[in-house]
Structure formats: structure tokens, C-alpha cells
């Protein structure tokens, strides 16, 4: 999930455009990490040293590791350690953006440093993603005063990002949440959750985006906006909310229940207090996940 969070960070700061981000994300599964990138991430080489070795590599038929050892930047043991390391996808995302010419290795070094400082997370090493770290990022960047940092709210968002990764695809970037008094519906599905507090959850998007979203979710190619597309959005929301209430009921003594999902083609969504829109950008369009409470 760090990849999605880094994507959000880069977008928010105007370091990348949405198109550049999606292009780099779309190649994640085919990309292999380069020794230089991981050496920067581990703080063993500076970006300048990596650039220097890459320049030499472009003129001599040698491996990057050999050149770095020759020049005294790395020892043989360090090269072997780096080669055996598992690399998190967010580093690959950075490497792809360097290769696309969006920024340089030197920029990447600075961005990763700033990112770690801003998130106050110094160990994003994660071959196994750290749940506490994810909760901390969600609390800091995605929960707003109107939707306070409470364990169930953090759990809801964490699960939401996980459900998107699991059922739709990992090539998305969460955008900045927006607090609204009401939300004008484009097309979507709503589902109420009743617990100590009542919530209405809603997923909203335009029809073209819905077709693409449904195709991925159902693993079928839908060509037009039909009952299956609508049902796929219902199923996704119902599935995600279902997983949430299972987690809540397992972790706490709260009684929590779900109403059946409802299709909403028009109108305005509002809660007794506020609605928070969590937009999520995919290459095929933006999905709005809205929680009114």
C-alpha cells in the first residue's frame, strides 16, 4: 500500500502529473529493481555516485555492482546483500519515474528523504507491510477533523484501500479527501452501516468509469452500462463493508449491521453531520468513496 501512498504524496506536491504516475504504476509488475536504486534507498550510495556508475556502465561492458566496487562506493558484501534484498514496490515506482525522465536519481533521493520525514516513518522497508505504519499514514494524511482518528475509522480506510488493491487493482492513487455538507450523486451505490453511530457509505463515479471498474472487479469485459455493471458496484461496496463489519465485530463488542446496498442514479447525499469524499484515481477514471455520518 506504500506505493499508493507515495503516489498520493507525489501528486499532492505537484512532483508528477496523474498521467505520469499511472504510466509508471502500470509497469510495476514488469519492472526489476536496479542495484543503484536500492543502494540509494539503503543510504549506501548517493544519487551522484549512482549517476556516475550508470554513466560508466553506458560506456563499459560491466555490471553496475562491479563498477561501484571498483570505485570504492560499495564492498562486495554490500553488493551481495543488496542483490538479495526484497524491494518494496514504492521504490520501483520511484525508479520507473526516473527512467521516464520525470525526475532524476538525485530528486528521488531527496523525495524519499522528505517522504520519510513527512510521514515520520523511518523504516519503510517492508517486505512485509507494517500495519502500524499504514495506520499512521492513514491517520495523518487521510483522516480529517470531521472524521476523527478513531480505530474504526482508521480500520475502515485501511480496509478500503486493501479492498481496492485486492478486488480492483493496485494501480490507483488516493487523492485528497474533501469534507462536504452534501454530495451530488453522479451514479452510485449506497449502503448504510448501523452501529453505535450510523453511517451511509457510497461509491460514486461516471458511467464509463463504472464499466471499467466493474470489468476489473468481476473479471469480465463489460462493454456497456448495464445491470451487471451496476451489480458489480453493489457487490464491491457490499463485500468491502461486509469485511469491515466482520473485523469490527471480531475486534470489539460492538453490534454492527449492514443494510442491503441501494442504487442511486441522482439526488444529493447528506448525513446528519458531514460527508467525507475519499477520491481514488485509477487510470480509467476516478472513483469517489463517500462516507456520510
Amino acid at each position, binding site marked *: 500500500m506504500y506505493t499508493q501512498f507515495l503516489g498520493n504524496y507525489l501528486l499532492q506536491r505537484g512532483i508528477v502529473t496523474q498521467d505520469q504516475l499511472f504510466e509508471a504504476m502500470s509497469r510495476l509488475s514488469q519492472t526489476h529493481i536496479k542495484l543503484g536504486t536500492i543502494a540509494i534507498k539503503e543510504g549506501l550510495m548517493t544519487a551522484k555516485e549512482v549517476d556516475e556508475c550508470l554513466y560508466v556502465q553506458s560506456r563499459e561492458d560491466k555490471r553496475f555492482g562491479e563498477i561501484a566496487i571498483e570505485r570504492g562506493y560499495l564492498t562486495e558484501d554490500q553488493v551481495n546483500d543488496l542483490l538479495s534484498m526484497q524491494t518494496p514496490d514504492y521504490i520501483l515506482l520511484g525508479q520507473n519515474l526516473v527512467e521516464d525522465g520525470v525526475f532524476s536519481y538525485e530528486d528521488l533521493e531527496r523525495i524519499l528523504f522528505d517522504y520519510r520525514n513527512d510521514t515520520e516513518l523511518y523504516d519503510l522497508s517492508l517486505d512485509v507491510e507494517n500495519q502500524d505504519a499504514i495506520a499512521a499514514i492513514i491517520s495523518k494524511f487521510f483522516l480529517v477533523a470531521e472524521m476523527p482518528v478513531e480505530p474504526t475509522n482508521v480500520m475502515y480506510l485501511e480496509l478500503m484501500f486493501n479492498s481496492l488493491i485486492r*478486488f480492483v487493482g493496485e494501480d490507483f492513487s488516493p487523492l485528497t479527501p474533501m469534507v462536504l455538507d452534501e454530495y451530488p450523486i453522479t451514479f452510485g451505490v449506497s449502503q448504510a452501516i448501523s452501529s453505535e453511530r450510523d453511517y451511509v457509505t457510497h461509491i460514486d463515479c461516471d458511467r464509463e468509469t463504472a464499466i471499467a471498474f*466493474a470489468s476489473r472487479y*468481476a473479471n469480465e469485459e463489460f462493454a456497456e452500462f448495464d*445491470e*451487471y455493471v451496476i*451489480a*458489480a458496484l*453493489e*457487490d464491491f461496496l*457490499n*463485500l468491502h*463493508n*461486509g*469485511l469491515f*463489519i*466482520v473485523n469490527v*465485530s*471480531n475486534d470489539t463488542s460492538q453490534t*454492527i449491521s*449492514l*443494510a*442491503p*446496498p441501494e442504487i442511486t442514479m441522482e439526488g444529493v447525499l447528506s448525513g446528519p453531520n458531514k460527508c467525507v469524499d475519499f477520491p481514488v484515481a485509477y487510470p480509467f477514471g476516478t472513483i469517489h468513496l463517500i462516507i456520510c455520518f
Partner: protein
Amino acid sequence: MNISGKKILVCDDSVLARKQLMDAVKEVSEGAVFIEGKNGSEAVDLYKSEKPDLVFMDIVMPEKDGNTALSEIKEFDNEAVIIIVSSVGTQDQLKKAIQLGAKDFIQKPFEKNQIQEIIELRLGGK
């Protein structure tokens, strides 16, 4: 596996969920006759009129939920073979469904082999 003539009632308010379940059954077997219901009330009515051999049923449905329908069907026919298929699998709901007489509980999203096991176990020996 050939299950010619066996009637399977698939009850879910989502047309996609019904389609995916029927597709999964068709992939692992042949010959089943499907009956579709989209809420608990339809499930009870269709069970009484069609007497299916196997029922797949969601829990969260409009009009009448899956557990209520399950209880009414079991009252009508204590031998009914009902499998709950739901994304809402809290311990309480699972316990309740089993107490009410559900034979099994499948958590969505299901895997094809789960459906295969159910078909083999529930319709294979008949």
C-alpha cells in the same frame, strides 16, 4: 460431474453474484437446472414451488434477509440443503445460520473449488 436434472436455487439480490455463482457451478458440473431469486421472500416461495435439491443464499437481502428465509424454508422442509454465501460472515451470523440449519457457509469472494466441493458433497452421492 454430471448432475442432470438437479435443481439449484440461487438467491442473491445481486444479479452479478447470481451469474458468477451459476457460472462457477457450470464450470465444475453439467446439467443443473437453475432457479433464481433476488430476495428472501422469493427464496421461500421458490423453494416451496420448485423443491430444489440445493440452495445457495446470501444473508443481506432486501425484503427478507437470508437467515429469516433460511428459517422459514427449514420449517417447511427440514431436509432442505441450504448453503449461505455471503461477504458478511460475523461469528454471530455464522453461528445463527448454522443453528438455523445451514449446511455450510461460503465467504465471498468464493473460489471455484469451494463450489466444486459443495456440489460433490451435496449432489454427488444422490
